[in-house]
């Protein structure tokens, strides 16, 4: 364990490495980088004790730009490497950075197991609905019909929703943010870091080169208020420029609907209160898609359970309780005989 006396509060720039940032000018990744650096500073993270692990993709270049420990691994395997890091040293604060292709195409299986095991890492999925680094092929989150170099007539695959998938994998912490919303991202990162277990964070990220404005229909300033809902545990699910839109349970159905307070007899009392421990609600919230419904942002689900690496460690410690094993004794355990 490396407990350090921290000399002085660090600033965002203290988390920036000396490497030139090499994303395309205007890429959403820049804003996320800044937000991470800022919130690490705010949460008083120790660079020495922080590890960023990534796969391959534009997003996965992230660790190079962080003045922390960093491991840029191979495509799709960051969750597996990170699991090894965390099992081997539970004291480290481990962050995984991944793209929609990295995490959900080639890496889907490792993500599944990281989540179900509940390994205590923060998993940041930069979702630009495209393969950036390989120049623009469609990804598992691309909308059906996406034209791309590999789908000139449009893709025919039904996309996967990252958060829905994470819920299906038993994730205990699910949040969603947007690249350019630094403050909200900061709040999410802080919550994710505090959560002891796998924290899954989807970050909507604009790829200016290959999928520009894929999210404009809810990220554009002009529509943001009407198409985004920032959820907070214990608070009503209210949104809209005038704060008069809300989410309620469609009467008599297992369904949510967007309503306007004051219209059709809807009152504020009808509006659901966000309960981040409710898995069913989480499933409904993550599935909301503009324009019919606002997109849910913030900490959508958080229902902690013991983390994996601690349980693993506990078994090792329990085994050690009666003293560390003696190699010479081990070799002589069971039946032996002596020749003289």
């Amino acid at each position: 364990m490396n407990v350090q006396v921290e000399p002085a509060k660090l600033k965002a720039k203290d988390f920036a490495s000396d490497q030139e940032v090499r994303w395309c000018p205007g890429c959403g990744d820049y804003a996320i980088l800044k937000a991470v650096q800022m919130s690490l500073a705010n949460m008083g993270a120790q660079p020495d004790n922080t590890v960023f692990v990534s796969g391959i993709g534009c997003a996965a270049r992230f660790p190079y730009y962080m003045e922390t420990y960093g491991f840029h691994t191979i495509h799709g395997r960051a969750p597996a490497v990170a699991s090894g890091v965390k099992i081997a040293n539970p004291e480290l604060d481990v962050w995984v950075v991944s793209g929609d292709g990295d995490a959900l195409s080639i890496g889907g299986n490792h993500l599944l197991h990281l989540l179900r095991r509940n390994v205590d890492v923060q998993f940041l999925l930069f979702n630009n609905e495209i393969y950036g680094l390989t120049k623009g092929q469609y990804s598992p989150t691309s909308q059906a019909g996406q034209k791309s170099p590999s789908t000139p007539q449009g893709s025919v695959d039904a996309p996967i929703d990252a958060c829905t998938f994470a819920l299906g994998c038993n994730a205990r912490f699910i949040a969603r943010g947007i690249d350019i919303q630094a403050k909200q991202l900061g709040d999410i990162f802080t919550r994710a870091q505090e959560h002891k277990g796998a924290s899954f964070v989807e970050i909507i990220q604009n790829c200016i080169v290959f999928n520009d404005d894929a999210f404009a229909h809810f990220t554009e300033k002009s529509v943001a208020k009407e198409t985004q809902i920032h959820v907070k545990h214990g608070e009503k699910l209210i949104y809209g420029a005038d704060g008069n839109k809300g989410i309620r349970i469609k009467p008599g159905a297992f369904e949510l609907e967007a309503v306007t307070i004051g219209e059709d007899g809807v009152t504020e009392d009808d509006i659901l209160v966000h309960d981040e421990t409710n898995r069913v609600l989480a499933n409904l919230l993550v599935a909301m898609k503009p324009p019919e419904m606002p997109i849910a942002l913030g900490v959508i689900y958080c229902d902690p359970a013991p983390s994996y690496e601690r349980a693993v460690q506990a078994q090792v410690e329990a085994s050690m309780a009666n003293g560390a094993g003696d190699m010479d004794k081990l070799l002589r355990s069971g039946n032996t005989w002596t020749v003289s």
Partner: protein
Amino acid sequence: MNLQTDPSQGESSDGAPLSEADSDSVVVRFAGDSGDGIQLLGGQFSQATALDNNSLATFPDFPAEIRAPTGTTYGVSAFQIKFGSRHIRTSGDAPDVLVALNPAALKVNYEQVLRGGLIILDTGSFGERNLKKAGFEVDPREDGTLKEYRTIEIDISALTLEATKPFDVTQKEALRAKNLWTLGLVDWMYGRSLDATETFITRKFGDSAISQANIAALKAGHAYGETAEVSGDIPQTRLGEVKFESGEYRLVSGAEALSWGLVAGCKLAGIDMTFCSYPITPSSPILHILSRLKNFGVTTFQAEDEIAAACSALGASYTGKMGITASSGPGIALKTEAIGLAISTELPLVIVDTQRAGQSTGLPTKTEQSDLFLTVWGRNADAPMPVLSARSPGDCFETAIEAVRLATKYMTPVFLLSDGYIANAAEPWLIPSMSDYEPFPVSHRTDPEGFQPFSRDDETLARPWVKPGTPGLMHRIGGIEKADGSGNISYDPDNHQLMTDLRFAKIDGIANDIPAQTVESGAEKGKLAVVGWGSTYGPINRAVTRMLAEGYDVSHIHIRHIWPLPANLIDLLHDFDEVLVAEMNKGQMLTFLRSQCGRPIEGHLKVNGQPLTIHEVQDAIRARLDK
């Protein structure tokens, strides 16, 4: 169809194997249904044999099915043991004695028995149905099938039921003691004490009826021999004790020795182990063994697949622990990409490959040595790394320690090759003392002064190993080409050449840090060198020893360090008129050596999923020297 028969084993011109003149050793093969407890029987007999100071080697031969329908040929489980009054290094060729607990076991095994050898049958299992299931149209006891063998027919089933009658066990439970009845008989044949087995039974079943029934069966089998109900038909043999080096011994299987060697290596390196693996035959026992050694600072992780296993082991190494992963065949293939990352990031990692037979799924429970190409050359781009191979169960311990030493000292992944044969085989092992080993403590870098993640040790060319969590040493690594020293991403052509050259130089340099190649037996130069690697050690060594005794000019060279090869190996080979590689594949070491040393080399190759036999190696030697 005649399953699992290997007529290449010491065949005579008319098909049946010839009787051997090896009076100082005996080969016994137990065979029965998967449910008959053959492996336990074999294990207990081995134990008793070892305690009598006989040398021995074993060869368990499992069916591929978990528990195939009783009575079928593909459900036959076998266990072969060779023991003797001289050092035994192979489980032997054709059995002198076959104990067949049902017709299927007879069917699958009798052709391998030495002509004139002894076959003991449980007649209680030779009913119509079982005969048919085994594929015998006629009862083989009656149609002359067994005429070249001595057969002893005993209704072991009935006698076991009889012996266990006094105890409160079900008929099913009673019949399960058949193996112990048989063990008792065989123990009597070779003068083994029943004590160890009795203790074993009591430990396992406590003071229960089952325990009592089992012990009764064991004793009944023994008494059956003693009272000679078969009027002296059953031969009794006493082999002298082997002059073992003095010390404490135990039986050890390759999987055990390998697991323990990995733990010992980590102790010597002064770091804890994180072992990440995914079950696969015949690699799984290592995971099973290590998962019980958590009190040795071993953390085990059953990953979701082999890719994750390799990656998480690498992640563990990244934190400063010894990351280890293990698999076989298809699972090793899946780790390829991650191993490339280990080479590129220059992190230690040990990858254990317990080789199995056949490409793709192949024959998972059979043995082969056919991953040499995969481990030496099977990676994208130029990606050198050390490859070691263990020659016997006990040798797995030493080789595993060496793998950890090289991985940590040189900051490199290391392949450690075993195979299905040595993993499951057992041999008496002079238990080493940890104080005999020179520790090779790892020192993780902590000094920020002048730190560069890709600076290099002058002697080893290894880069520094830094534990995340170390103040002031934050840095980034990855699979993209790195600038010499700083480790920053670099697309500079000269740097790529330089780094590639450095990675090669680092691994090549290991040749100077490993023992020179020695000659196992025979002269240092001469007419013929038989070169082997891995589990063929036993048969080659025995064959060469025999041929030397017959006056042939032949030597045995056995390679542990496959990559890099010992510095003197090429010269050594040039000192022989002929070089013959004997291996269980289509010529991988053969091709590899040809590529490394500009001289003609021949091969004796076998790929039938069975260990080499002494006879075939002898024949191969004769074919070269008798011309």
